[in-house]
């Protein structure tokens, strides 16, 4: 049984994922979060079961966030900080190893290395509920990640893909942070180096995509 031969075939892929979340802790604040991530990549099959390529990634996240502070007399003040609160763009290189089950379906997985730039701002109410502070961060990150997916070949030139899991075992980033309470304009600026090695899988989002095999 000869499966479709992929060796030397080149492709363009795009995939997108969305995620929703809702947290409703016992005290006043409740948040809804939403986000999307999108990537486009260009690659080539080196052998029937191995592909390498380059990718560009982009993500955006936001939420509905309401915060309440209380002044000395106990009078509450509400802040509506809903909207987009983080955005990132990145570029990277990936390697994918395939297992083709039959002519139509297979799975793939492999490592990638990405350089990502992201901006975020997060609000925090102080432990005595008197002040709200805004924490901004600009971050540049180099990470090694693992991703896996499955594909369905619905025509000779088109695939549908789904990504099912990923992990970031190695990450190193450098952030420029700025924090200030909203009642005064005193900014506390710092820079921070974060590092992590964590061999585990999480399922933060599921993405779906399309792949187009061009030429040949």
């Amino acid at each position: 049984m000869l499966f479709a031969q992929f060796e030397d075939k080149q492709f363009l892929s795009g995939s997108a994922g969305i995620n929703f979340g809702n947290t409703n802790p016992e005290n006043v604040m409740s948040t809804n979060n939403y986000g999307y991530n999108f990537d486009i990549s260009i690659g080539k099959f080196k052998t029937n079961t191995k592909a390498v390529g380059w990718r560009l990634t982009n993500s955006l996240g936001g939420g509905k966030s309401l915060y309440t502070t209380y002044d000395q007399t106990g009078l509450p003040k509400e802040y509506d900080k809903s909207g987009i609160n983080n955005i990132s763009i990145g570029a990277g290189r990936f390697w994918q190893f395939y297992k083709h089950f039959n002519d139509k379906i297979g799975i793939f997985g492999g490592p990638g290395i990405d350089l990502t730039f992201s901006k975020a701002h997060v609000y925090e109410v102080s432990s005595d509920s008197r002040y709200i502070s805004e924490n901004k961060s600009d971050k540049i990150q180099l990470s090694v990640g693992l991703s896996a997916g499955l594909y369905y070949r619905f025509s000779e030139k088109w695939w549908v893909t789904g990504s099912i899991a990923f992990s970031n075992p190695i990450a190193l980033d450098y952030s420029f942070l700025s924090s200030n309470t909203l009642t005064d304009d005193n900014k506390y600026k710092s820079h921070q180096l974060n590092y992590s090695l964590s061999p585990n899988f999480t399922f933060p989002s599921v993405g779906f995509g399309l792949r187009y095999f061009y030429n040949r």
Partner: protein
Amino acid sequence: MKKTILLGMLGCLCFAVSVRAQLQKGTKYVGGTVSFSGYNNRPNKEVDQPTNFNQISFNPSLQVGSFVKDKVMVGVGAGAALYFGWTKSKFSGALPDFKENRQTYSLSPFIRHYKSLSPKWAIFLNSSAEFLFLRSRMNVVPFDIIENGFAAGIQIIPGISYWISPRFALESDINLLSLSTGYRNFQDTKSLYFTSAATSNLNSYFSIRASWYLQKP
């Protein structure tokens, strides 16, 4: 008649080699994993009361075992979860530097039952008893507060192994499907706990371990 005997022999052969070499009685096992993370925060030059904040967490674990019969392994695991945090202030009139560390050391004898799915994959069920020693220390001159505690419990967790080569496999405990129960006495709180993935805050669903299955030569 010959055909029947031949088929019969083939059938017996299938049974006889159905236990892979890696899961046979006498095979020795070593597995381990490590994870760490941390950060170093430095204030910008213009901040007039600069304090450096630093933190590192380090979690190594090691397991050794041996197959006491086909597809059943008995062993013991040791692990640690270590956290260190410290601040450094370099301006006159600064509050004294703050140092904190938290340590958990665990010892867990376990028994693991395997089921082979294919030449490269197997699933297992790991049942273990866990004994933990917990310690926390906070040091801000003139205070130095040290607290010790312990916990003991049992845990059941399924997992999956994938053999990259006959002696080396990557394994994952599926934390998402784990159950554990025990007793904990630490920081003036005594508690009985029962957790499953549905009730605990998991930061990882699958953790990966490198393992070696060493057969007798």
